[in-house]
């Protein structure tokens, strides 16, 4: 009897030792991510999410995710960082040079990851990232996060070429001047049909239009080596004037300032179509075309959406608005992670960049959230089914959700290639061909105390004035008064601080 008891006891001990060993490899990771599917339910690991289960099986990491609606992510970031005792362990910082990112990094909210990124032996995927982009996100020369890679040359114009053909532009415009002419002619098609699809988020539209027209992005350096704000460039004013002319010609919805960015698609996906053109990331252009094919019976062989980018301005220069700096935010590891756990967390972030990690985060699990069809491309539905089939779309949303927000892809896109329509191929080709035309803000990495403190509200005032100018509420004198105000309120200090760094670097 004693023997049997002893046997049981030793067996129990063995089991407990084994389970302890297993627990040591396991790791729970609290993650905060922006959520783009706030209206759908999220299936957690406990409830059997197959993607999280696959991540757990591959790495032993149990992801415990806090989803924050994207529209409120900025303020949630501030509040989260105001409570150091309850921070998530890993989170997305959306603005790599925002005041909150810089001040939190300096205050010691995040782990310094510089040495990990340099360690190619243990973290090969992180080390494979672009040094130039890492430089862009560094704070005081140290890295506090892993950037989320984005293509440089995403921005441009997409428009309905079936409407453009009605005003004599069956062929795509070849220059910025032709483009402007086309827009003004399209404005005359119908008083209820607008040309530019605009919403509350105007920085993209104004930026793309003015940079295409030859203006610098945010700041420029003149011939004497002096830094000046982009809005004081002649080409900028010309681009802004064009938007104002288009507005006056009935080419822009007078209510655009009340349209939330979440409803940006409404005007182009309405019946009858309310807006014919949008200045934005061009991936929205091919998605728009695919939507038209699905819902409006547009023939995929004859796309009605055209993508426009890299047009020469009247001086023959080609410039593309930098939708980003090669990154869209970064993933930071907060001090909620104890130092002993940090290598394991970094190992996990490295894995997220591997082909396996990228595929799980961006596409999910094969035959569950994505399907490789017989043409060899990746689809979000099985062969022979409809894309909009509610079964697959809902399932994908509830299990895959916005997991791609944790993806970094610093070593390039290693996911299975998605289905390739003509427009998607054109878009991908554009990315390759046009990266050289993308301009940069010369002061991007400069640290200005005044800019950290007041830059955002100063920029808001200038943007407001520009919108009022477009809408015809103020004239050129009013606009210039707002620019003068920018200088007085702190803009001059920002310029002086930038200039000092610029001169020191020269």
């Amino acid at each position, binding site marked *: 009897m004693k023997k049997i008891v002893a046997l049981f006891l030793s067996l129990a001990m063995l089991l407990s030792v084994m389970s302890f060993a297993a627990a040591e490899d396991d790791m729970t990771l609290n993650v905060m991510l922006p959520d783009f599917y706030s209206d759908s339910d999220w299936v957690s690991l406990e409830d059997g999410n197959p993607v999280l289960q696959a991540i757990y099986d591959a790495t032993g990491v149990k992801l415990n995710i806090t989803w924050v609606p994207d529209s409120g992510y*900025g*303020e949630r*970031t*501030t*509040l989260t*960082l*105001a*409570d*150091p005792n309850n921070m998530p362990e890993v989170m997305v910082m959306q603005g790599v040079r*925002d*005041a*909150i990112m810089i*001040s*939190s990094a300096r*205050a*010691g*909210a995040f782990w310094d990851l510089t040495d990990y990124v340099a360690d190619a032996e243990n973290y090969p995927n992180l080390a494979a990232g672009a040094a130039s982009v890492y430089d862009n996100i560094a704070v005081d020369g140290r890295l506090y996060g892993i950037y989320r890679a984005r293509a440089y040359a995403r921005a441009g114009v997409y428009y309905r070429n079936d409407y453009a053909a009605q005003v004599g532009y069956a062929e795509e415009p070849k220059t910025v001047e032709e483009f402007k002419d086309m827009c003004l002619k399209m404005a005359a098609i119908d008083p209820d049909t607008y040309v530019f699809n605009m919403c*509350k988020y*105007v920085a993209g539209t104004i930026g793309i239009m003015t940079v295409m027209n030859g203006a610098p992005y945010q700041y420029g350096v003149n011939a004497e080596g002096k830094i000046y704000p982009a809005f004081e460039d002649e080409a900028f004013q010309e681009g802004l004037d064009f938007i104002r002319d288009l507005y006056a010609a009935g080419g822009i*919805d*007078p*209510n655009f*300032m*009340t349209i939330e960015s979440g409803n940006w698609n409404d005007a182009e996906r309405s019946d009858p179509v309310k807006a014919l053109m949008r200045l934005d990331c061009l991936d929205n252009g091919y998605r728009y075309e695919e939507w038209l094919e699905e819902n409006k019976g547009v023939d995929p062989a004859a796309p009605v959406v055209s993508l426009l980018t890299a047009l020469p301005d009247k001086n023959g220069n080609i410039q593309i608005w930098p939708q980003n700096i090669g990154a869209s935010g970064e993933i930071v590891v907060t*001090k909620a992670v104890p130092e002993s756990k940090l290598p394991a967390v970094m190992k996990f972030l490295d894995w997220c960049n591997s082909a396996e990690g990228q595929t799980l985060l961006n596409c999910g699990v094969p035959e569950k959230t994505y399907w490789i069809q017989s043409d060899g491309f990746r689809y979000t539905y099985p062969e022979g089914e409809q894309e909009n089939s509610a079964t697959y779309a809902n399932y994908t949303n509830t299990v895959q959700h916005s997991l791609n927000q944790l993806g970094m892809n610093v070593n390039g896109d290693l996911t299975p290639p998605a289905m390739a329509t003509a427009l998607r191929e054109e878009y991908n080709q554009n990315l390759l061909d046009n990266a050289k035309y993308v301009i940069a803000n010369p002061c991007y990495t400069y640290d200005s105390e005044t800019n950290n*403190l007041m830059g*955002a*509200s100063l920029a*808001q005032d200038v*943007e*407001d004035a520009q*919108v*009022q100018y477009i*809408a015809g*509420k103020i004239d050129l004198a009013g606009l210039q008064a707002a620019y003068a105000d920018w200088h*007085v*309120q*702190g803009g001059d200090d920002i310029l002086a601080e930038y200039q000092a760094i610029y001169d020191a670097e020269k």
Partner: protein
Amino acid sequence: MAKAKTVNTALPGTKRYGYWKKLSVDILKNPWLYLMMIPGLIYFLVFKYLPMWGIIIGFEDYSPFLDPFRSAWKGLYWFQRFFSTRKWMDYLSNTLILSFMSIVFTFPAPIILALMLNEIRGIRYKKVTQTLLYMPHFISIVIVVSITYVIFGTDGIIYKLTTQMLGRSIDYLGDPGVFRWMIVGQNIWKETGWGTIIFLAALTTVDTQLYEAAMIDGANRAQRLWHITLPAIRSTIVLMLVLRMGSVLDTGYEHLILMSNALNRSVSQTLDVFVYQNGIVNGQLSYTTAVGLMKSLVSVILVVTSNKIAHALGEEGLY
């Protein structure tokens, strides 16, 4: 504390004791009353007085990763910063104008409505009307703003109607001149019905014999209203007004943010909106704490002044 005072004054002929002496005598006399007061005291200490220490971050360069008492001391730096922006005048005047409009237009609305309801004779009709009037109070301001967008936008029915009637269009959602009226209008629509409750309650205390006597003396409706009803609820009105003054600078930032856009921001930027934008969105906790503190000071001045005025009018006021 009010209890202690009244009891003390009711002790005639006693010598002039010190405050603490009097208090301890009173505590011995009414131990149970003081015991019952303890939970309330604790509530105020823990939830109202203790958090006030947070004001300290308005005087330093606060970082959540350092102890509030170890962050760099900045003194009045943030106040100077705010007053040197020149824009502070806009923020303050936007706040004060909106507050003033809400006192002048929003505050009397429930009184007028309550008096109208009071004149309704059919009980059932009155009850149904009251219930319907309470409804908008339960609608979120987000929904109210959405409805406004739908009916006042360029595709909206009111926009089209007024364009037809006036022969020119009014930009309800963008025109800075219209903005404040829209805010006041929305507040009146949403809160007037709910606001009648307290005045209707006050009206039930009016002695009906007074009306009968006045009717016999030949007073008409308007005279009865002016000479009986209004004086009867006068103290309620003054009390509500003084209470209102304490929160009058709270312009409701969520409402303003929902209604504001690039075209009307010159009038929609109040102190509350500024604090939200710079504190919560841009993360400048010290700066905005200082601005919030300044707003509180203005509020205190308003309450004390209005209470003085109430006393001057012969009303009890708040304290």
